[in-house]
């Protein structure tokens, strides 16, 4: 069937491109590993953590931020794909993709799914290295985390796609860092639990609570400990639907978002 054939080809292409660029894999792994092995080591002394779900005992700070760093991998991947579109590096191949005789939503879904698969591969490599340094989760948790990471990757990929269709020109990577990646990452439960944030500022804690990235991180965190978290899953799914719909709207040929960008 032509739909499935094209879907598979888009996934295959992204996987080959990713594996072909060794540098990209290394860069994608160095970032979270620096956080885990340097930042977390320095920070554990400064930050006392109490026992909060899903943990049943005191944990080290490294254990706490590992799911957040998986989320960070998904976040960077989603933004990187949108940046490459804005920068025209991918614009040609995007135009080629959109001339395929298939519905546009299907092609964009395949593209975002491919990005989520890459995120999953990177998370797997990251978790394996973390385990080698003694930062381990219960092993069935790694299996349970697969759908959680995929869902988070889809949601953040849809966000990236949405940004690429609406933002006329992202000046440079610093712009995205300042306005998307940093706020999303720091206003979340990736680095500190929400109750800690609440002590510092109730307003910031509330912002963290509505940030879809917080829920993506919590979804991964709970999955790693084999505990269901319907609220987080629901939030991530909702955000995926909202971002996905907005991205489709942005790429709708009749809306001409692409036209305005091109003028």
């Amino acid at each position, binding site marked *: 069937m032509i739909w499935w054939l*094209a879907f*598979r*080809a888009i996934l295959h292409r992204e996987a080959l491109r990713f594996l072909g660029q060794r540098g990209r894999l290394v860069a994608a792994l160095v970032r979270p590993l620096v956080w885990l092995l340097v930042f977390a080591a320095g920070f554990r002394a400064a930050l006392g953590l109490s026992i909060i779900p899903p943990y049943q005992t005191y944990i080290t700070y490294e254990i706490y931020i590992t799911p957040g760093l998986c989320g960070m991998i998904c976040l960077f991947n989603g933004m990187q794909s949108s940046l490459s579109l804005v920068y025209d590096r991918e614009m040609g191949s995007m135009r080629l993709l959109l001339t395929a005789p298939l519905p546009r939503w299907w092609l964009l879904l395949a593209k975002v799914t491919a990005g989520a698969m890459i995120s999953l591969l990177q998370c797997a490599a990251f978790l394996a290295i973390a385990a080698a340094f003694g930062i381990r989760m219960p092993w069935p948790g790694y299996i349970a985390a697969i759908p959680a990471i995929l869902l988070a990757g889809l949601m953040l990929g849809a966000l990236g796609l949405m940004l690429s269709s609406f933002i006329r020109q992202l000046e440079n990577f610093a712009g995205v860092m300042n306005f998307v990646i940093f706020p999303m990452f720091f206003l979340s439960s990736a680095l500190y639990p929400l109750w800690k944030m609440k002590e510092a500022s109730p307003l910031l804690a509330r912002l963290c609570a509505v940030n879809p990235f917080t829920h993506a991180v919590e979804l991964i965190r709970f999955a790693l400990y084999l505990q269901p978290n319907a609220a987080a899953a629901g939030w991530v799914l909702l955000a995926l639907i909202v971002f996905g719909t907005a991205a489709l709207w942005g790429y709708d040929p009749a809306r001409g978002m692409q036209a305005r960008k091109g003028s």
Partner: protein
Amino acid sequence: MTPGLGIHAVSYSYGAKVALSEVTLEVPKGRFCALLGPNGAGKSTLFSLLTRLFTTRTGRIAVAGQDLARAPRAALARMGVVFQQPTLDLDLTVRRNLLYFAALHGIGGREAEVRTAEALERLGMAERAAEPVHALNGGHRRRMELARALIHRPEVLLLDEPTVGLDAAARAAITAHVHDLADQGLAVLWATHLTDEVRDSDQLAILHRGRLLASGTTGDLRGDEPLREMFLRLTGVEA
């Protein structure tokens, strides 16, 4: 006349700026139509509309009899495109690039292998199938994009300034090759701003500031005047 590419009263504006105004053009099968226009004439806008990057409510576009607005997938399936910007994956092999495109058009498995091999054979590039695209020179890349655009056997072929950045020999070769394709029955729309790529027997459409200034057979249109002179006279653009 077999339907090739039909463009009927197509207009488009970016906000208040009119990019295309009532453009009507018919390219039957077996014809090579040169769309000649200076930079900023509206060629790229027209190509974006033809490839459905965006759509317009005014006017109608038909590809091999299929309406692009009402049956976009049927229309796109009958269309081959060579874009102005490069669309190859430089890190992937020549063969892999072609297979990817074939799959996007619903051709997989053995059939895709056969058609990819045929396309490479035609290019005389069979022995380079396993090389990454970045090892190819500009001319070879362009020929490869052209071969790729033909893999799904389209009836209409669109090329947006396909010779940009090529040396004289590569430019002449690709121009001649596409003329041959038209002779074999394809409807070809070739956008360019270079008059020497146009032959007297070609259909010619001159686009300037979003309007068609002239449309017909090149030889009839130019009479005794060199095409270059006529083009400059009509568009008032200094070369």
